[in-house]
C-alpha cells in the first residue's frame, strides 16, 4: 500500500507541525506535546472547551480549534487515545479560570485518559474540569455492549454548540447543559466499502471482499452490525438514515451531516446526500442545514456516515454562530 509518509512512527508529530503551519493565525502547538490550542488560549474568564482522541480521523479534532469552537485538541497516536499527561497539559493551557469542559468520544481509552487527566489537572490547580461523553453511534446497542454506544461524528455538533455558548461567556454548568442537549438529540451510523490501512502496519485492518460492504462500522474499522453484499448508494443511504431516525425520533428541523470516511470522493457523498434529504422530507422533517464532506474520517477507509441532530431554536442559533475553526462552515 502506497502512502505519503516519511517514518510512519513520526507521522503524528509531523502532521501536528503541518496543521499549525496551515493555520498560524489561529493555532499554536503546546511545546513537547501533540496538543494544538487556540493562539490566544487561555481566554480569561471563558470556559475552555477541549477534545481529543486518536489520530487518523482528520480534520477531527484539530480542524475544529478556533474561536467559537474548541480551545484545544489533543492528537494521540493513530487510533490511540492521547495520554493523560498530554490531556492534562491541554486542560491547564485552556483554563481561563472559568473551568474546562472535555468533550470525549465514548471509547474506553479516551474516557479513562480524560478521567485521569482531569484528576491531574485539578491537582495542578484547575478548579473545575467537567466531562461529557458523546455516544451517538446508533449501530451498537447499549444492551448488548455494556461499553455503551460509540462516540462518532455527532461529536462535531457538540464541539460547535458548546464552543459557541462558551464564546458568549456562559458558565460551565450552562456549557455542560448544552453539550448534553446535543448528545441527547443526535445519532449517527456509518458503513465501509473498504478497510483502512494504518501507517505503521501498512496493510488493511480487516478483510472485506470487493463485492461486500459492512454496515455499522466503527471509525477504527471495528466490526459493524452486518456484512452484506454491495448495494447501490440509495439503499445504503436509506438504511443509515432510517436507523438514525428510528433512534433520534426528530420532529421538525434537523441538522444533517453526510461524512466521508477518508477514501470516498465528494461526488459519492453528494449522491448519498441527495437520498438522505429526500428521505428526511418524506418523513415530514425539515433539513435546516447540511454538512457534506470529510469531518471524522478513518484514514483512507472508503465509506460514509449519516448524522442527524434534532434541533430547537437554541441549537440552531449556536450552530449558526461564527467560528474561525478551519474545518467547520456555518450557514
Amino acid at each position, binding site marked *: 500500500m502506497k502512502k505519503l509518509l516519511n517514518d510512519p512512527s513520526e507521522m503524528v508529530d509531523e502532521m501536528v507541525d503541518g496543521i499549525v503551519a496551515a493555520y498560524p493565525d489561529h493555532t499554536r502547538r503546546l511545546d513537547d506535546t501533540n496538543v494544538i490550542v487556540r493562539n490566544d488560549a487561555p481566554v480569561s474568564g471563558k470556559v475552555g472547551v477541549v477534545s481529543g482522541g486518536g489520530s487518523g480521523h482528520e480534520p477531527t479534532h484539530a480542524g475544529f480549534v478556533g474561536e467559537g469552537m474548541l480551545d484545544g485538541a489533543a492528537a494521540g*497516536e493513530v487510533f490511540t487515545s492521547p*495520554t493523560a499527561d498530554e490531556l492534562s497539559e491541554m486542560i491547564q493551557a485552556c483554563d481561563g479560570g472559568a473551568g474546562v469542559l472535555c468533550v470525549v468520544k465514548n471509547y474506553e481509552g479516551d474516557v*479513562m*485518559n480524560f478521567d485521569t487527566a482531569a484528576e491531574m489537572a485539578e491537582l495542578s490547580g484547575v478548579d473545575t474540569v467537567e466531562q461529557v461523553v458523546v455516544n451517538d453511534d446508533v449501530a*451498537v446497542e447499549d444492551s448488548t455492549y*455494556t*461499553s455503551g454506544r460509540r462516540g462518532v461524528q455527532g461529536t462535531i455538533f457538540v464541539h460547535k454548540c458548546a464552543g459557541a455558548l462558551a464564546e458568549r461567556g456562559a458558565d460551565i454548568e450552562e456549557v455542560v447543559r448544552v453539550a448534553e442537549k446535543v448528545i441527547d438529540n443526535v445519532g449517527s451510523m456509518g458503513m465501509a466499502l473498504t478497510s483502512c490501512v494504518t501507517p505503521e502496519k501498512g496493510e488493511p485492518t480487516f478483510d472485506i471482499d470487493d463485492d461486500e460492504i459492512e454496515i455499522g462500522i466503527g471509525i477504527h474499522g471495528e466490526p459493524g452490525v452486518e456484512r452484506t453484499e454491495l448495494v447501490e448508494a440509495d439503499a445504503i443511504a436509506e438504511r443509515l438514515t432510517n436507523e438514525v431516525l428510528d433512534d433520534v425520533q426528530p420532529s421538525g428541523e434537523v441538522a444533517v451531516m453526510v461524512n466521508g470516511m477518508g477514501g470516498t470522493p465528494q461526488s459519492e457523498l453528494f449522491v448519498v446526500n441527495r437520498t438522505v434529504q429526500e428521505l428526511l422530507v418524506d418523513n415530514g422533517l425539515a433539513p435546516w442545514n447540511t454538512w457534506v464532506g470529510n469531518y471524522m474520517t478513518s484514514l483512507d477507509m472508503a465509506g460514509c456516515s449519516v448524522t442527524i441532530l434534532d434541533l430547537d431554536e437554541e441549537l440552531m442559533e449556536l450552530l449558526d454562530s461564527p467560528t474561525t475553526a478551519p474545518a467547520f462552515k456555518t450557514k
Partner: protein
Amino acid sequence: MDRADRQHDAVLAAIRNVAARLAEEKDYLTELDSAIGDADHGTNMNRGFEAVLENIETKQDDDVADIVKDVGMTLISEVGGAAGPLYGGSMLHASEQLEDGLTRESTVAFGEAYLEKLRDRGGASLGDKTMVDAVTPAVHTYKKSIEEDDLPPQEALAKAVDAARRGVEFTVPIRANKGRASYLGWRSVGHRDPGATSTLFMLEALLETAEHHLDEEVMEES
C-alpha cells in the same frame, strides 16, 4: 544494610524483573491482543516499562512509595490507550499505601487500593473478561493468606499468583463485556484476555523477586 535500603533494593529489583518479563512476553501479549483487541498491548506495556527503567536510574535515593508513584506516572504518559490509566493510574493511586515502606499490612492495602482504582476507572466487574479477572482473585487471596491464614508474605504472594493464573484461564471461555474486545461479542470467546495475562506476568515477576529479595526480616514491622 538497613531494612529501608533492602526494601528500596527489593522494589527496584521487582521493577526490573517486571520490565524484563514484559519485554520477553511482548510478542505473545500483542498476539493475544490481535485476536480480540487492537494488537498493541505487548508493545505498549514494553514501551512503558522501558521508560520506567530509564527513569528509575534517577530514583536511587527515593523511598519506595515515591518510586512506585513514579512508575505509575511514567506508565500514564508512555502507555496510552486504556492501559495507561488502568495500570499507571492504579499504581499511582495505590503507591500512597507504601509511604511507611513494605509491611504485611501495607502490601495488602496496596493491593486493595490498586483493585479499587482499577474497578472504579475501568468500570469492569468480575467476568467481564478484563484484567479485573486476574487482579481480584490475586488481591483477595493475598489478603486472606496474610490476615486469616497468617502466612509469610512470600507464601501469600505465591498463592496470589496461583489465584491470578486461574483468573486468566477463566477469561478464555467467556465473552467480553468491556474494552475493545467487547465490540467483538461472541467472537471474543476462546481467547485469553491480554490485560489479565500481562497482570499475571507482572505478579509472577514480583514473586520471583520476592524469592530472592524478600525474607521475613525485610517485611516484618519493627
